[in-house]
C-alpha cells in the first residue's frame, strides 16, 4: 500500500515538475529582454496543511512589492528527501532553483553533495551594504546551526522548533503542585511525576517516542553528555558516557517506578489530551494541535535542566540555501531571502506553521511576533530557550540513518527495563561505530 502511494506521489511529482518547468520556460521567453524582469524559483516543503498557504501569501506579497522580480514557488512533496532528489536532478540538468528550504538533518549531506552558492562572499559581492546582515540579526548559536563542522555558513536559519515540557494544570492542582511554578530541573520533574501518580493516580511523565532521538539528545546533552564525538577526524558515537547513561536512566527509572509512560508517541499524546497524563516532553510544533484538542488549558515550560549544568536543546526545522549562479538572480534571491526573513514575514510564517523565528528582535518587533507572543505564553516559553540551541546531531555517511535506528532500538531496550542505560548505550555505541 505505502509503496503504491509513494509511487503515485513520485509520478505526480514528476508530472507537476514537467508542468512547472514548462510554465517557467514560456514565462522567460515572454518577459525576457523587454522589461528585464528577473525570475527566481523558491523550493519549499510546506504542504497545504502545513504553511503552504503562508508561502503563497508571502510570495504574492513579495512579487507585488518588487515589480522587477518574479518569484515562482514550488512545493516539493515528501519533505526534504523529495526536495533533495528533485534538487539533485535539477542541478544535474543545469536548471537549479534559487532559494531552497533544507532540513537540519540534511546539513552535512547538502554541504558535501550539492553545488550551493556560498552565502557570505555572495552578499559581500552583490549587496555590500548587507555584509553584516547575518552577524547583526542572528544569535551566534543560531547562525552556527547552518554551519558545517569546519565553520562554513552554507545557509541561513529559517524555521526553528525546540522541545518543551507541556503539562496539564488541572492534574498539577489536583496533585498539590503549583501550575504556575512548573518543574525547572529533572529532579523536580521526577518528584512531580511521583506526586502526580500518588495523589491523582494519573501517569506523571512521557517523553516523545518519535522515530528519532531529538528529545533524547536534549536530555543527554543537557547533562553534559554528547551524541557524537570526533576521534582523529572520524565521527563516532559519543553517548557511551556516564553523563548520557545517567540522563537516560532517569527516564527509565520513572517508567520502572510506574510514574513515567513508555508507549508509542500517539498513545502518549492521546493520554495527555484525554487528561490521563501530567507532563509531556515534546516539540513546540505540537502547540497549536494540543491547544486545539485538549479539554484543559495546555501550558508549557522550558525544557528542564540538570542542576548546575548548561541547558542544550537541539533545533528542528529548516534553513535556506542559495543556488543561483548569475549576478542578477543572486541579487534577486538575496532580496527575497531578506524579505522572508523580515520580522513581519517571519511572524506570518510562524503563525502558519508553529515554527519559531530564527532572528533576534522579532519577538519585540511591533510588526512581528509581539502580539502573538503576548497572547500566547507557551510560545514565549519556547522562545526563552533560543540561546540554548545546539545542532541536531546526525550520524554521517551512508549508514547514518541506520545508526539513528539503532539508537531508537536502544531507547526501547532502556525504557522497557531490559538493560540498564549504561549497558544498552555501550552496546549500541559499539554497533554504531562498526557501521560508521
Amino acid at each position: 500500500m505505502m509503496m503504491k502511494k509513494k509511487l503515485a506521489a513520485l509520478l505526480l511529482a514528476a508530472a507537476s515538475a514537467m508542468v512547472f518547468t514548462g510554465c517557467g520556460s514560456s514565462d522567460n521567453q515572454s518577459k525576457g529582454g523587454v522589461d528585464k524582469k528577473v525570475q527566481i524559483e523558491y523550493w519549499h516543503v510546506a504542504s497545504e496543511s502545513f504553511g503552504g498557504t503562508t508561502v503563497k501569501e508571502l510570495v504574492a506579497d513579495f512579487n507585488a512589492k518588487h515589480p522587477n522580480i518574479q518569484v515562482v514557488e514550488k512545493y516539493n512533496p515528501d519533505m526534504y528527501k523529495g526536495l533533495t532528489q528533485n534538487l539533485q536532478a535539477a542541478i544535474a540538468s543545469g536548471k537549479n532553483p534559487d532559494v531552497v528550504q533544507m532540513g537540519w538533518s540534511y546539513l552535512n549531506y547538502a554541504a558535501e553533495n550539492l553545488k550551493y552558492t556560498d552565502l557570505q562572499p555572495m552578499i559581500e559581492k552583490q549587496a555590500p551594504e548587507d555584509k553584516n546582515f547575518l552577524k547583526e540579526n542572528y544569535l551566534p548559536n543560531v547562525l552556527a546551526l547552518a554551519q558545517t563542522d569546519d565553520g562554513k555558513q552554507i545557509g541561513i536559519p529559517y524555521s526553528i522548533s525546540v522541545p518543551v515540557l507541556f503539562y496539564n494544570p488541572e492534574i498539577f492542582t489536583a496533585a498539590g503542585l503549583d501550575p504556575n511554578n512548573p518543574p525547572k530541573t529533572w529532579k523536580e520533574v521526577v518528584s512531580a511525576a511521583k506526586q502526580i501518580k500518588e495523589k491523582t493516580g494519573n501517569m506523571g511523565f512521557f517523553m516523545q517516542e518519535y522515530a528519532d532521538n531529538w528529545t533524547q539528545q536534549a536530555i543527554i546533552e543537557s547533562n553534559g553528555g554528547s551524541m557524537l564525538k570526533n576521534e582523529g577526524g572520524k565521527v563516532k558515537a559519543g553517548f557511551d558516557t556516564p553523563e548520557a547513561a545517567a540522563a537516560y536512566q532517569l527516564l527509565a527509572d520513572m517508567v520502572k517506578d510506574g510514574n513515567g509512560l513508555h508507549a508509542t508517541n500517539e498513545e502518549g499524546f492521546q493520554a495527555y489530551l484525554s487528561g490521563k497524563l501530567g507532563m509531556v516532553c515534546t516539540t513546540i510544533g505540537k502547540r497549536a494541535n494540543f491547544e486545539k484538542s485538549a479539554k484543559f488549558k495546555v501550558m508549557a515550560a522550558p525544557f528542564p535542566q540538570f542542576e548546575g549544568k548548561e541547558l542544550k536543546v537541539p533545533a528542528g526545522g529548516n534553513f535556506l540555501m542559495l543556488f543561483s549562479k548569475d549576478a542578477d538572480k543572486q541579487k534577486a534571491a538575496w532580496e527575497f531571502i531578506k524579505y522572508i526573513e523580515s520580522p513581519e514575514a517571519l511572524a506570518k510564517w510562524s503563525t502558519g506553521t508553529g515554527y519559531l523565528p530564527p532572528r533576534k528582535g522579532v519577538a519585540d518587533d511591533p510588526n512581528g511576533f509581539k502580539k502573538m507572543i503576548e497572547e500566547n505564553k507557551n510560545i514565549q516559553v519556547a522562545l526563552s530557550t533560543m540561546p540554548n540551541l545546539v545542532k541536531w546531531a546526525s550520524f554521517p555517511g551512508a549508514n547514518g540513518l541506520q545508526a539513528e535506528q539503532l539508537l531508537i532500538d536502544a531507547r526501547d531496550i532502556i525504557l522497557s527495563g531490559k538493560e540498564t542505560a549504561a549497558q544498552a548505550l555501550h552496546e549500541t555505541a559499539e554497533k554504531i561505530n562498526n557501521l560508521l
Partner: protein
Amino acid sequence: MNKAKWPAFWFLLPAALLFVIFFYWPLLQNLYLSFFSWNMISPTMKYVGLSNYIDILGSKEVYKIIGNTVIFVLIMLLFNFVLPYLYSFILGHLLQRGKMFYRSVLFLPATLSLAVASILFLWIYNPLAGPLSIVLAWFDMESPRWFKENLLVIFSICTIIGWKVFGYNLIVMLAAMVAVPREMIEAAKLENASNWTIFRRIIIPMTSSTAIYVFTITVVFGLQYVLVPVNMLTQGGPDQGSSNLVYIVYQYGFIFFQTGKSAAFAIITMFCYMAFLYLKNKYLEKKVYYEN
C-alpha cells in the same frame, strides 16, 4: 481445434506483456539493484557485488526478523484461517436463526481500510486512556504496553489484521461450506454421526480446495497487510520486535535509503515465499479434493 489455438494465444498476450513489464521487469531491476549501494538521491551507484547479501545473512538481525515473520504467520493463521473455518461451519450448517445478522456483522469490518483499523486499535490499546485499559482496571489489572513488548506487539498487530481479514475469509469459506451437499450431511446424521465427525469426515475433505486458497492468501497477503499497521504504529519496534520480512524491505529502502540492502532483503523475502509455495504444493496440495 488447431485453428482455435492461436486467437486464444493473441488474446492473452497483452495481459501477459503487462505482467512482464510491471512485474518481471521490476523483479529483474530489483535483483540488479541488490548488487549496488545507492541512497536514491546520489547520482552515482556503487557496485558492491554480493556484499549486501553477505552483510544481511551474517547479521543477527535477519534471524530475529525471520523468527518474527514466522510468529506473525502462525498467529495470523489462527485468526484468519482456523477461526473463519470453524465459524463458517457453524454459520453454514449448525446455526438455525439469525444467519444474515451474523454474516453481516462479522463481514462488516472487512470493508474498512487497514489504516483506519490501525488508528482505531491504537485507541483501544492505549494503556492509559483506552477502553481496554478501563475494562482491565475493573478487575484491578494494569494494561500491558501492547505495542511496546516483544511478542505481545506481534499479537496486537495480528488482531488488527484479523479484524480486517477475518470477515472476508469467513465469507469465502462459507461459500464452500454451503456448497457441501446437504443430503450427504443428512445421511451422516441418520447414521448418528456427531457434528465433529461430520466436520472431520465430510466438511474438511469437501471444502479443502477453498481452504487451501484461504490458507495461501492468509500467509501471502497477510504478510503484506502487516506493513500498514507496523509502519503506522510501531515502525518495527520495540527493538525490532515487530519487524518482519516485508517491513524491513520498506525500512531499508525508504527510511535508511539503503536501496541495495533493501533490494537484497526483497530477494530473500521472495525466496522465502517460494519455499513456502513449494512446501505447500508438495505436502498440502496432494490432499486437496478438487471437484473438477
